[in-house]
């Protein structure tokens, strides 16, 4: 069961209680459990998480370290299997899919942006961007491709190799790669974790744009309240459970909620 915490109302933040209505979501988890190890060493990284990620929305996942953010994201993205529960990407039930099915799903329906090492050093920026499409043997939609390139502002860097790009530029290439195949959902795990604040802001702004302008669905794990404030919705995880959620968050609201979670953890 999803456990939702009540709490103080904050200005500028819409609060929603109870289980999310998950139908028509770009991806959703239904009572997902993830248990690592067994016996003494057993760790439950997710304990009955149900969440729907709305289409065309920018969702951030926050929570203390070790709360299960990455695990949730991996399970939603078909990178990891769940111990119990069900995960859907679009309308596809992915729990129980084999490696081949999951791989193809990731290739066709999911985009990724990792914290670092997003790019293949042997390929140019352009080749990196087109990689998921070439793996699938699909032709890029030229117009869409041009739009993406212009949005990330990389047109003059397309022939460069990753080592010739700055960290911010590399992350923008990663964003373009995730976008260009028009996946159902893009997952980003601390995409700005390694960037200075200016490059970080560029990337975050770009991600928000792609949601606003192109209706892309994005899920982002982050530690940074400021980064989370770019999102339409923030989900808070603690101890493997969803404990709170904010809509249209501001950085202050996010910080408050985090503080709140910390004090609660301290009290507990």
């Amino acid at each position, binding site marked *: 069961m999803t456990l939702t915490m009540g709490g103080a109302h904050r200005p500028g933040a819409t609060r929603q209680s109870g289980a999310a209505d998950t139908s028509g979501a770009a991806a959703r988890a239904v009572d997902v459990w993830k248990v690592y190890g067994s016996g003494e060493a057993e760790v439950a990284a997710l304990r009955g998480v149900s969440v729907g990620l709305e289409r065309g929305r920018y969702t951030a996942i926050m929570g203390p370290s070790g709360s299960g953010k*990455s695990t949730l994201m*991996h399970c939603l993205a078909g*990178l*990891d299997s769940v111990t119990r529960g069900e995960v859907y990407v679009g309308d596809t039930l992915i729990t129980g899919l084999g*490696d*081949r099915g999951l*791989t*193809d799903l*990731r*290739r*066709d329906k999911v*985009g*990724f942006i*990792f914290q*670092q*090492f*997003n*790019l*293949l*050093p*042997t*390929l140019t920026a352009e080749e990196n961007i087109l*990689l*998921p499409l*070439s*793996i*699938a*043997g699909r032709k890029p939609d030229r117009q869409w491709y041009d739009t993406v390139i212009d949005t990330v502002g990389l047109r003059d860097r397309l022939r460069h190799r990753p*080592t010739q790009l700055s960290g911010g530029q590399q992350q923008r290439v990663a964003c373009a*790669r995730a976008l260009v195949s028009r996946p159902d959902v893009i997952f980003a795990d601390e995409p700005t974790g390694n960037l200075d604040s200016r490059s970080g802001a560029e990337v975050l702004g770009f991600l928000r744009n792609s949601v606003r302008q192109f209706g892309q669905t994005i899920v982002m794990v982050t530690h940074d309240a400021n980064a989370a404030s770019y999102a339409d919705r923030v989900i808070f995880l603690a101890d493997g459970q969803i404990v709170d959620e904010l809509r249209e968050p501001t950085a202050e609201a996010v910080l408050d909620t985090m503080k709140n979670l910390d004090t609660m953890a301290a009290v507990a």
Partner: protein
Amino acid sequence: MLRATLKSVLSRKLRLVLSGLAVVLGVMFVSGAFVLTDTLGRSFDSLFAGVYAGTDVAVTAKPAVAGVDSGERPTNLPADLVAKVRSVPGVATATGVAQADGARVIGGNGKVVTTMGAPRLGTNWTGTSDLVQLREGRGPQAADEIAVNAALAKAAGIKVGDRVGVLTLQPKKTFTLVGIFGYSGDRDSIGGSMFVAFTEPVAQELMLGAKGTYSSIDVTAAPGQSPEKVRDAVRAEVGGGYEVKTGKELQAATVDSFRQGLSFFNNILLGFAGVALFVGVFLILNTFSIIVAQRTRELALMRAVGASRRQMIGAVLVEAAAIGLVASVVGLAAGIGVGAGLAYVFGHVGGTDLPLASIGVPAAAVIGAFGVGLVVTLVAALLPALRASRIPPVAALQEAATPDRPLTKITVAGGLMSAAGATVGGYGLSGKAGDSTMWLIMAGVLVSFIGVALLTPVLARPVVSVLGRLFSWSVPGKLGRLNSGRNPRRTAITAAALMVGLALITGVNVILSSVTATLHKQGDTLVKADLIVSGEQMAEMPPTFDPAVLDKMRGIPGVRDVAGEYYDRATLNGQGWGVDVVTDLPAMARMFPLNAKEGSIGPLGPDQLAIDEAHAKILNLHAGSTVTVQLSRGAPHTMTVAAVLAKNDVFNSIMLSPSVVGDLRVPQPSWAYVRVVPGADVAAVRAQIDRLLADSPEVNVTDRSGYIQQQTKQFDAVLMMIQVLLALAILIAVLGIVNTLALSVLERTRELGLLRAIGLRRGQVMRMVTVESVVISVFGALLGLAVGCGLGAAVVRALRSEGITSLALPWSQMGVYLVLAGVVGVVAAVLPAVRAARINVLGAIAHE
């Protein structure tokens, strides 16, 4: 520091195993060679034990012709010498022995029984002894009876009571087999030799060519007489024309000659072990380079916390020494196994039944194993160790990306070394180097290999990118190609290791195919004979056939010319040469277009000879000069040069008049050349000749191209053997590819994780690794083929003066090698590819 190093070695077991394997294989070959030859050597010792037990002293004639194997003594002892020796004080018995090589038994299948180089002796039956024991039947008593040793009976598939055809100095004669004998210790044969025992007069006639003569006299000393004393007494009695030796001396000489053969064999094995180890150096060098590159951060951290440069070198070298040591132990153990296995195979091949001595591990094997294992590993690790010591401490704090070091220096060095190697090798090939020719050629090849290996990184980029285009139609193919091009040094060394083995094989191939092509060309344009009678030469003397066939062939309708050729060795003015006796010189001259430079070509009269230009020059002979010719038998002839023949591309020889046939060791022809009249049915003539040869199973009649094929057939065996022996070097190179790929996969864990995350299927990952592997191995093969062609062409060029005029590249063979290299690439990729495909996606992208 030491403990830290050993820990790091043990924590990388796979790497240890892979880089160690190259050393293990090389060491195995080295120690196996020593174990094999030691075991065989001691087996021979016991094999010949007792062979001369019943002989205290033996008397033989000095060979008439210099340069003939000491085992062959066609010069006979007169019968009265036996009585003379018997009368020497101290001699108890003196037995005349009439024995010679060349008793060829026709087996149950109609084919002549052959041996693996051991003699096929015909002898007089002197009864049983401590050594010779009848197994079945009895000794021969009538002129048409024989006994044979058990090994021969088995190989021929004959039993007592059978009628058996035997070829000797005379054409086929048929005997009844009345007995089968073996030797003390239940041996079927001594050293694989085959024995046919005749009655004494028959043995004298068929084996020695004259009744009332012997080849040697076996003497036993009277009780209380030492063999040495008796030897001296006999020597004093018979005079200087004879050799008198004790049984012990003879035994030592026999064993010695076998051991010499063995040590030659040992050297060949060690040579191939050397090639394998040379390739192993590439593999180890590469492994350590990759390891050092991958551990840059770790090593820099050590430097940062205060390890000195010397300690860094030490750390890498200790790791190498540990690997070398373990590999030497394993290699030695494996070598003992391989040596024992090979000894067994040698002991039982081709019907020989060698009772093996216990497997021995000579000190040389142990010293060789550890010396080679350690030295090779340390030498190979030296460069990476130096590189490790140059890592600056700040590297610990930087991104671990290995910068692309420029290839200028290495390319210049490679160019210089290749040029030096080519110069040295070229000088060796030019034949001006005398005794050191062989060494110069080998050094030249070795240095050239290193030079080409150094040039390889520069070649890697363009060649790999061209090769890779073949695979670029798919994303995995493209990624694989890019991966193989991303570290040119690594790719280059891996490919160069494969190059070495293939270059040697291709070089030999080029030489052999050029010789074959030359023979075919000469056969077609220069030989006018329509049919040729010949056999496959397995021993020192070529096979022979009944001389009566020559006359009968002349009688076949449609035959225009027949020329028969006999072969023997002779001494001309004191120098040993191979000589021919030609039945019809004018006919022979028409077969090979021979032209007189001096004198004229006509039938050779008694005591006349014709000689080719080159021999004439060496012997300083001209038309009309006389020369003293000593043949295997009889007194020296003073012969006159009737003609000096102009140089011919095919046939250059010293040809003696048919009048001396009786003095040849085997008075039977080995070859015959036949021309038919124009328009005659060659096939019909051939069928008739075939019938005439029914009793001469050692030879057959073929047309020109069949004859040339027969000549070149032995090349296939040579090539096969070289391929088998070099297969080890290639196997090590394949290990090198596996190792490089495995380490690369390890290094690219993150990338693989990323690729899998964004949708590359397992199968596609495997294909990516496979393409990388195939690109590397095909690159190596191309290098090998190119270098091999260069090598072969250089040798062929040098052989031009020997009459090898065509250079033929074995395209189809080379195509096969290239395809095989592709297959090798696929096979080498299997394990790394599986490993890559199994990578845990989450672990790969999450771990930092």
